[in-house]
């Protein structure tokens, strides 16, 4: 399979990630959508690396993306815990403290 197939799958995964963020009104779906988008980017990095000069740059990018995604998930879950304590809900539409 060529580069185009990987890029097409990656674009579709990116689109579904965006849909998960904007359709489901729930913090966890936003988190999962972000993970999908990061994974779509990872597929692109590795595919372009493989079909390009087959060096290391793209794979290193993908590794750092995975590292940052892990850090992001941990921090985001901590924030979600606090938001849940504060608002008794995980819907982002109900976190409106600054509006008062």
């Amino acid at each position: 399979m060529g580069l185009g197939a990987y890029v097409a799958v990656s674009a579709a995964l990116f689109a579904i990630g965006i849909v998960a963020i904007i359709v489901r009104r729930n913090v966890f779906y936003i988190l999962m959508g972000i993970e999908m988008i990061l994974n779509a980017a990872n597929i692109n990095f590795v595919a372009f690396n493989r079909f390009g000069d087959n060096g290391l740059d793209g794979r290193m990018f993908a590794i750092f993306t995975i590292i940052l995604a892990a850090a992001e998930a941990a921090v985001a879950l901590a924030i979600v815990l606090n938001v849940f304590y504060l608002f008794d809900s995980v819907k982002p539409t109900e976190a409106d403290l600054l509006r008062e």
Partner: protein
Amino acid sequence: MDELLRQRIFYGALALLTLAGLGMGLAAAGAPGLAFGLFASLTLGGSLVCVWERSVVRSAFALMATFLGIAGFFVLLESDFLAMAQVLIYVGAILALILFGVMLSPPDLGERKLSRVLGGLLLVGGAVAWVGTKVAATAAWAVASPPPAGDVRGPISSAERIGVGFLAADQYVVAFELAAVVLTVALVAAVYIARRKRADIQPDSGQEGL
């Protein structure tokens, strides 16, 4: 339309799409194409189920299929170390973190907003497809050489190259150390934020609240 019928229609369509993807891959490139079709349908089908299902548990487990499919892509792209890291970190760690959130989230038992899901899929899919056709029409990706498919040394492990790249002074050692610092700071901060007592963050409990 009742719930059961919707589920049947959705999963039936998903199964048909999966079969179509497998058949297309097999027809296009033989066995590697079949593997590609399998991983592509795992990835995209898992993410579609994740958007579709109403309970966070089911969505998280559907996301596991997505991550495993992407690990398969990494294997197909000869990045075995990345595939292993994908399984360990995403399936093992991040998914466990998301499943932890199940305790906070009641199941969404309201009416499934079919119009929102379909409308979002159509809108975003159309936008991405439009940008994709524009890019495909204009971009000239420099594919340096045809990938050495029949390499005589067989599949090369990328783990050794990545390890040397991480530690060689003229390659990625600075980024490696930076990533270590970022992970340490982020995880310590996450533990600190998550361990605060409920009373500390109620809005009427003084200055330390937010």
